[in-house]
């Protein structure tokens, strides 16, 4: 998976962030994040992309070789 195009690596992390910070059960309790924090996290995580191996997390996706244009 390390050979994934950068665009696909980005998709894996964006999909993760969208889910963990915006979805899931919301129960009573103290949320670590405010709405403003969530925006900051989105930005800072995008900056991290080039130095991390998030591609390995694109588990089970449509193989890049089967995608149009690849």
């Amino acid at each position, binding site marked *: 998976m390390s050979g994934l195009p950068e*665009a*696909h690596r980005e*998709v*894996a*992390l*964006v*999909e*993760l*962030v*969208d*889910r*963990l*910070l*915006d*979805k*899931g*059960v*919301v*129960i*009573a*309790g*103290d*949320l*670590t*994040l405010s709405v403003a*924090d*969530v925006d900051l*996290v989105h930005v800072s*995580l995008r900056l*991290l992309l080039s130095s*991390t191996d*998030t591609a390995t*997390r*694109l*588990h*089970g*996706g*449509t193989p890049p070789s*089967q*995608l*149009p*244009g690849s």
Partner: protein
Amino acid sequence: MIYVYAITDRPDARLPDVAGLQDAPLSAVVAGGLVGVCSHHDGGADLRASEQALWRHETVLEALMGDRTVLPVRFGTRLPRHRDLAALLESADAALQAAIDRVRDHVELGVRVRWDRSPEPSSGPRPTTGRAYLAARLAEEQRGRAYRDLAQRRADTVHLPLAEHATDSSRRLLPAPGTLLAAAYLVPRESVDRFRAHVTAVAHANADLQVVCTGPWPPYHFSPRIEEPDDA
């Protein structure tokens, strides 16, 4: 302070051998037929969102969903003590049981579609009169509407055939620049490979779009907001 990862309904199931945030061991809080999975941390622990923390939260969820149905809890949810989680599970028992039943034996698959088409930029000279300005505004609104209509039609060519093969679905049109569609599909566990094959077929049929399928994820998009119990 405890950090909460998930709610399940398998009090008999052993916790998986994975660590939580900051390598803290997982623990289970049982209340009735429900289990809250959490880890204990000092009050000053730094549990802010980082890429590593997000993946660790996800790793715990994926380990749990290997042998049980889970309701993923939103990242960053903390409670003061274990007994607060137990009380919450008891007070929301019916809603949580119903939510678990809704996603039982299902996983979530994500489909994200990239599209390099942008709204047409405005053309022509800068308006110098009020009338010309209003005409330019009207033309811009029409271009925006046409763009959204086209985006909707293209997104439908991906989403509608896939939604037919899912128990439930959720979608966002044009969620970000360059992205036509971000969708989530609730799919029976045994149908994951078949659903991926449908995604591949849809991708081939829409060669100008870049269709990427991710997952299986815990059912984040199909988990509810549990309202605070009424104190009265």
